[in-house]
């Protein structure tokens, strides 16, 4: 690994994070990264923070109505 952390914004979806070892949530709790790439919740509605659980799909559907 280059040591570089890369973050990609997915429109209407999560942040894809590559190269991180830990993700620290809003309470300061550190969550170890165990995948080559992780999706961090950006809508604030996930049931398993800090990770995306695709709840944003239901959120965007409700907003469209």
């Amino acid at each position, binding site marked *: 690994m280059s040591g570089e952390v890369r973050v990609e914004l*997915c429109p209407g979806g999560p942040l894809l994070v590559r190269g991180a070892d830990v993700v620290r949530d809003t309470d300061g709790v550190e969550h170890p990264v165990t*995948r080559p790439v992780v999706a961090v919740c950006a809508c604030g509605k996930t049931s*398993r923070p800090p990770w995306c*659980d695709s709840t944003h799909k239901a959120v965007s559907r409700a907003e469209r109505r």
Partner: protein
Amino acid sequence: MRLPTPRGPLSEAAFSALTSPGTFEVSHPLVEQARAAADVLHCDDLQLTLWVAYELHYRGFDDVGDEREWDPDVLRLRRDLEEVFEAELRQRVPTPSVDERDFPTQLREVIETAAGPPLVPHLHRHADRAQLLQFLRQRSLYHLKESDPHAFVVPRVDGRAKVALAELLYDEFGSGRPEALHSKLFADALSGAGLDPGYGAYVDETPATTLAVNNLMSLLGLHRRLRGAALGHLAAFETTSSVPCRKIAAGLERVGLPDVVAAYFHEHVEADAVHEQVALRDICGSLVADQPALAGDVLFGAAACLALDAVAAEDLLATWAAGGLGAAS
């Protein structure tokens, strides 16, 4: 795994020829008869024979010689069956048209507008224990070799799409931890549910339409010509997984199955939320940016995945609506 039980004259002849020494030979009229099946997706004899022909490229069979994998006579039979299978797919699933918009957006639209029967809501809220176990047994045919068909595509693509595909597969294959192989997690789920975790253990009770779901992945994965469709299939699969897995996990917990059973599905809530983005954007988006001519194939693969998933789901729901736990037919 040993060869499954034949389901008609074609599979009977083919399995017998596979286990006999000498030239592999299946009489032409038998092949033609299967090719003329009125409903290719529901034809047990055809789908099982094709599944066996493909399985020679994965784990094989204890009672079939390894050299049969590249036996030109076996490959000829496989091609004859693939032709009729692909013709059926092309007829059922017209290739969606490609426009000027951002490709991942178009792909997502094809996936999100596909209609399917309410299998997941049923598993979530209503299915009883026996139905959920039947669902696990049927899914075991694929999940015990999870992602293997799409791995055949790695040497057929290059650049960003290859890197992203390898990244996704690395996660599917345990991210460096054998105990986290997704196929291993599914085997653990089967054991936890009191089912047989053996590879192919439930093929004899798997209906034609679920065999067809599996055969589609092999068809797309094994033909370089169809590499775009294979990756579109992967995108559709991953994009329709995260939310359903959360509901299926809740259904399994509702009927009191042990945590290890739902654990497989919980893992996929998170994993597939990632894989969805990687597959749509980094794999398919990059592939089409580099090779625009493959755009239609990618959309076709996605649509074909969802069309066959819908047929298999309809089958399962119809069995339950009729009050039965269906076996092979």
